[in-house]
């Protein structure tokens, strides 16, 4: 499985500079109940451009629920999430335009080829980056698999198609729920390199993971969920 990580990184045009006066993503005393269990409560979060927040904690501590609440996919039982000062419930479209979510299941259609999957993701996304679909697929190591139906690809390769979605769109906030699952060592390096570049360009990321994320000169905020 030829996976080559390009040496000279394709120059990606920098993200649109945002007004930096207040942190982009904030959450005040978030609480979440699953069934009758209280996963977490009184959680405050503030994430700004250029920062990476790592959400760590044992299984079942509510990492996935927290990420889904911050994306607006789930409702907290208490507290409020704000993007650029606006509640995400009210500013839903503006928030979704600057957000990309990579969940447990990758959201790649098996009947489509990686190329088609990316094309649709880009057409529906808020802002599109200058990277062409083929270049994005090349960068995530799917060269040669562009036109094979995604169901014939391995789980790791389908995860890479989902990662390619991040390259073809111009999302300022990446929310990744255990992005390293099903990825080989090259894949893990690819994700780390993508995060580095994204954060260097003023993007921000929220990653839940059990692995150590080796990224250099990046401001990491660790959030421990019991």
């Amino acid at each position, binding site marked *: 499985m030829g996976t080559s990580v390009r040496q000279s990184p394709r120059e990606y045009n920098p993200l649109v500079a945002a007004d930096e006066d207040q942190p982009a993503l904030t959450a005040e005393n978030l609480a979440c*109940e699953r*069934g009758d269990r209280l996963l977490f409560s009184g959680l405050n979060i503030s994430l700004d451009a250029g920062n990476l927040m790592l959400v760590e904690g044992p299984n079942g501590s509510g990492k996935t629920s927290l990420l889904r609440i911050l994306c607006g996919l789930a409702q907290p039982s208490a507290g409020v999430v704000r993007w650029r000062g606006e509640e995400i419930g009210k500013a839903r479209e503006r928030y979704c335009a600057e957000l990309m979510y990579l969940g447990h299941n990758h959201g790649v259609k098996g009947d489509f080829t990686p190329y088609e999957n990316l094309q649709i993701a880009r057409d529906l996304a808020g802002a599109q980056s200058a990277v062409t679909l083929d270049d994005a697929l090349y960068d995530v190591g799917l060269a040669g698999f562009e036109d094979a139906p995604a169901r014939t690809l391995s789980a790791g390769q389908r995860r890479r198609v989902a990662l390619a979605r991040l390259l073809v769109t111009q999302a300022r906030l990446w929310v990744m729920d255990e992005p390293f699952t099903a990825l080989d060592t090259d894949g893990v390096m690819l994700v780390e390199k993508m995060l580095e570049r994204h954060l260097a360009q003023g993007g921000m990321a929220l990653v839940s993971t059990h692995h150590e994320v080796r990224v250099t000169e990046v401001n990491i905020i660790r959030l421990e969920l019991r």
Partner: protein
Amino acid sequence: MWLWIHKFGSPKYFYSVSGKLLPWVAGATVLLIVMGLYLGLVTSPADYQQRETVRIMYIHVPSAWNSMFIYLLMAVAAAIGLIWNIKLADIVAAVSAPIGASFTFITLVTGSLWGKPMWGTWWEWDARLTSELILLFLYLGYIALQSAFEDRRLAARASAVLAIVGAVNVPIIYYSVQWWNTLHQPQSLGVGMSTIHLSMLWPLLIMALGFKLLYVVILLMRTRAEVLERERNNAWVQELAQALAGRDFFRSGNEYR
């Protein structure tokens, strides 16, 4: 008004208020129903045409009114729960459904019993009976959806959407069935009365009020039980339990407090 909803919406406040209210409402219900039955069964006259079977009206019509009233109230409670996220409203909606379904079932059975002497068959596709049957399906759909979710919060919100959609469709279903009935049976032998004398009207209204209060009694009891279940690891429930345990609840056997 908003403060009131929020204050009354708190389960603790609701539990204590409903505790005091329940005996009175229950008493009033029993009084009304006994009075209604006495007037309906004993003093009011038989109908010249239907003779004694008209007495079934005194439970059929109040049940029919209740079945519709409870469905709409359920939809309103569900909407309040969905929009303002008030847990108590979700409980009221979830608990009202079986009660409403029971009244709808009663309406159907008493309707067919009432119609049998006149129509000669146990079931007649009469407009009102058919609408009640469809209303029963709406109730069953709501209850089935409610129980299909594991997470109570999701169950409440999903069934709230269904209750609102259902409530919006009830008038449409009612008029299309009415319309369908006149289309196929020009002369509709409807169950019920054209004119009601005063002596029959009183028992009917008293029974209707009695049935509404009965719904409130069952609703309060079921809601109180549900609140205790859902709030059991809250402080106020534990205090209540300590207080009751202190007074050896088992011997005193009172369960309204």
